[in-house]
């Protein structure tokens, strides 16, 4: 049984450098790193000291507020560095990998006969809980709560992002195990979405509510789908998991091992031969970045896709949630009279002497230039064109900027997370930092209302 959802509003951003669908094995990384900025709002408490030997799957730290929530090491090795920032906040934890890997082994768990508490305990112990994210607030789910529904989006529309239909091939067993476990965690439904014309292995899963999605970006963002399927109300909780993380969860359930293996798309116009690499969470990006060859020196490495990813660097590490690494040229150059000449080589949502509308299928080579300066909100009605939510985007952004809690609630801040505003941010003529505004709004709302 499946339901079709067609998203009309949106904009596909076609970029040069789509990853070719071949998988290479990345060379093993020497040092693996867990970047704490991947876990928004988390206060970590270390469980092991610097210099200690850890096994793969062994807890490194836990959440100070929810002590059951363990974060485990992706590999076995020596904890060589705990990098701290201002006020001794932990920024990165680095592990020097052993040549011979050793693994913490848990018993396997057949989720079909297990209770919610058993599933939770298993995922918490195995280090897979942080893969489950919660809305509102876009933080790791609190295991003491119960969501009204769980959403998994298997449809990808983000520019240059890894094609889930491709990377999930052959993982049916793990996916089914993980989905069965998730169904225990909610009295509601587990909603899984796939592309209408794709051949996703997710389409054959049992025990889920399947949705077939079509339409331009942001149709693939889970937030868009939640809004169309079962929008979040004040007080409600919804959990989301990405399909690639389901594979890791499934493997933990089936084998009892935390196996942080990922197939990562290396994409972007600064990559000579963009393709997929099999590697692990926390690995050095350099282990596969140069294998594909890079164009020039001055490019930006992004953990994730170009709209929502985190800025990284050539010696950075693969993020906890990412299955895409993008490299695009930096745009730190001036453009003489760039504001009034006709533009053919950049994407635009208008037709104001910009001609991307003539070539909807052309692939563009965009750089990181903002193409203009930060201004007050002026133009209206443009965000709505690419924002399929039943929400007034500019009014919500303004409510967040003036910190009006009532307005934020009423206008639907509970339903969105920063990535839902990535496309409006992309087309914003006033170059306002939408995702940051929404993030700050969510933080404020969480602090004041909880």
């Amino acid at each position, binding site marked *: 049984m499946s339901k079709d959802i067609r998203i009309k509003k949106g904009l596909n951003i076609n970029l040069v450098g789509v990853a070719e669908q071949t998988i290479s094995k990345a060379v093993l990384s020497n040092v693996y790193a867990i970047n704490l900025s991947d876990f928004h709002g988390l206060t970590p408490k270390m469980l092991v000291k610097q210099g200690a030997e850890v096994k793969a799957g062994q807890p490194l730290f*836990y959440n100070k507020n929810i*002590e*059951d929530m363990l974060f485990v090491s992706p590999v076995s090795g020596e904890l060589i560095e705990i990098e701290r920032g201002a006020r001794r906040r932990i920024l990165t934890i680095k592990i020097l990998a052993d040549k011979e890997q050793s693994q913490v082994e848990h018993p396997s768990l057949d989720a079909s006969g297990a209770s919610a*508490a058993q599933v939770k*305990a298993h995922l918490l*112990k195995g280090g897979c809980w942080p893969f489950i994210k919660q809305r509102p607030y876009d933080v790791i789910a*609190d295991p*003491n*709560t119960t*969501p*009204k529904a769980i959403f998994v989006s298997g449809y990808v529309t983000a520019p240059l992002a890894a094609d889930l239909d491709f990377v999930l091939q052959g993982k049916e067993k793990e996916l089914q195990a993980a989905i069965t476990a998730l169904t225990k965690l909610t009295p*509601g439904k587990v909603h899984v979405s796939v592309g209408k014309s794709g051949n996703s292995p997710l389409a054959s899963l049992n025990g889920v509510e399947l949705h077939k999605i079509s339409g331009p970006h942001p149709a693939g963002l889970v937030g868009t789908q939640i809004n169309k399927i079962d929008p979040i109300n004040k*007080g*409600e*909780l919804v959990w989301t998991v990405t399909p690639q993380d389901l594979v890791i969860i499934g493997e933990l359930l089936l084998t009892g091992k935390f196996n942080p293996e990922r197939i990562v798309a290396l994409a972007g116009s600064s990559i000579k031969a963009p393709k997929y690499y099999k590697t692990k969470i926390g690995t050095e990006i350099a282990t596969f970045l140069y294998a594909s060859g890079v164009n020039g020196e001055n490019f*930006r490495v*992004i953990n994730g896709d*170009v*709209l929502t990813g985190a*800025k990284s660097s050539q010696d950075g590490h693969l993020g906890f949630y990412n299955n895409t690494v993008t490299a*695009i040229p930096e*745009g730190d*150059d*001036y453009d003489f*009279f760039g*504001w*009034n000449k006709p533009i053919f080589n*950049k*994407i*635009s*949502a208008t*037709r*104001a*002497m910009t001609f991307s509308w003539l070539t909807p299928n052309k692939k563009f080579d965009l*750089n990181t*230039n*903002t*193409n*203009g*300066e930060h*201004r*007050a909100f*002026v133009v*209206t*009605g*443009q965000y*709505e064109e690419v924002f399929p939510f*039943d929400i*007034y985007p500019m*009014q919500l952004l303004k409510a967040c900027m003036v910190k009006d809690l009532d307005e934020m609630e009423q206008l*639907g801040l509970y339903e969105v997370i*920063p990535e839902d*505003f990535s496309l409006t*941010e*992309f*087309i*914003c*003529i*006033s*170059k306002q930092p939408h995702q940051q505004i929404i993030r700050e709004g969510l933080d404020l709302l969480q602090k004041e209302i909880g």
Partner: protein
Amino acid sequence: MHDLKMKYKGKKMAPAINAFHTFLFTPNETTHSGAHVRAADDLKRTMNTVIMALLPVLLFSMFNAGYQHFSAINGFPENFSVMEHFLTWDNFWIGVVKVLPLLAVSYGVGLLVEFIFAVIKGHEVEEGYLVTGILVPLIVPIDTPLWMLAVAVVFGVVIGKEVFGGTGMNILNPALTIRAFLFFAYPTWMSGDKVWVHEARERSEQILAGATDVDAISGETILGFLAQNKGAEMSYTVSDMFYGFIPGSVGETPTLLILLGGLFLIFSKIASWRIMLSAVLGSLFMGLVFNGVVDQGWITETSKFYGLMSFDFWKHLLVGGLAFGIVYMATDPVTGAQTNRGKWVYGFLIGFLSVMIRVFNPAYPEGVFLAILLMNVFAPTIDHYVVRGNIKRRMKRLENAVILPKDTDGKTAELKAETV
């Protein structure tokens, strides 16, 4: 230029330097939060598109200034031909000496005020005035003294915009604030039959002073004729009205070029088609109502409203500033309604009220700028109710919310024991 920008970085004058720099170059800023790539459009490009849509109107107005001037002196040419009688150097020269100074004063004074405020308040010079600056000379009478315009521009920019926080924050359209200031401060310069044609006022003053070597000229607008129930004396054809060979404020007359500009703005997705369409509908509706009233015989020819009320409803769009106001002023995104539904209401009421004020205004038969200013004030109210509708839907949904309790019983304690 790049060196200069770096040199002044962090100093008081930085906004001024940056404004010149950003005029020449798209800056080298790269994204540092959120999306790593951005679309090609920025505010300058947006404003520039509006200016491009206004340039044909400006050019036409320069020719029309001369055409009206010479026609008032020599009579309208028979067998009118565009090349021979309209696009002539003589006509253009009048435009150069009359319209360009208005444009120069408008930009010069307005941008000066913007720069001063930017430096004082330490923010960047925003691009809002680029459009205001070209709108202003197009909506004033041709002989408006430059000092008067300068005073009005200072008032309009300071009171209409800067006191609210600058571009994007203002409640009233600055160009219309300037026009309204002129209208209320210097009414004799802004209305009557002596202000719409170059030299008309000057000559009548000379005649009053006893000069005998000049002929009096006048140029009443079509609305002026109608308001005095003198519609029959008017010699303008519908095509004159449509192409704009009629007296009026500098740039409000060429309906055809305004229409093309409007279509360009709609096509480029810069201006809202919703506002334009609904404003047209609103004005047609009001015009039809007035026509109906006349047809019913409720208004007789002796009534002072007869001339304007009996004017064919669709011709309202061709004369006066209605078309210009709808295309270039009502669509100002900052002062207009911001929600799509709100835009329908907002536009419709602008058209509706424009024609209504035009007919009933005893002092001055034109209402577009008043209607738009009035709706500027009400736009936030319209949006408020539209947004309330959205909130109400959300509140209704909330009744069926599935809020599950937190499990804080023994189970979690059990878990804790297991995991730690």
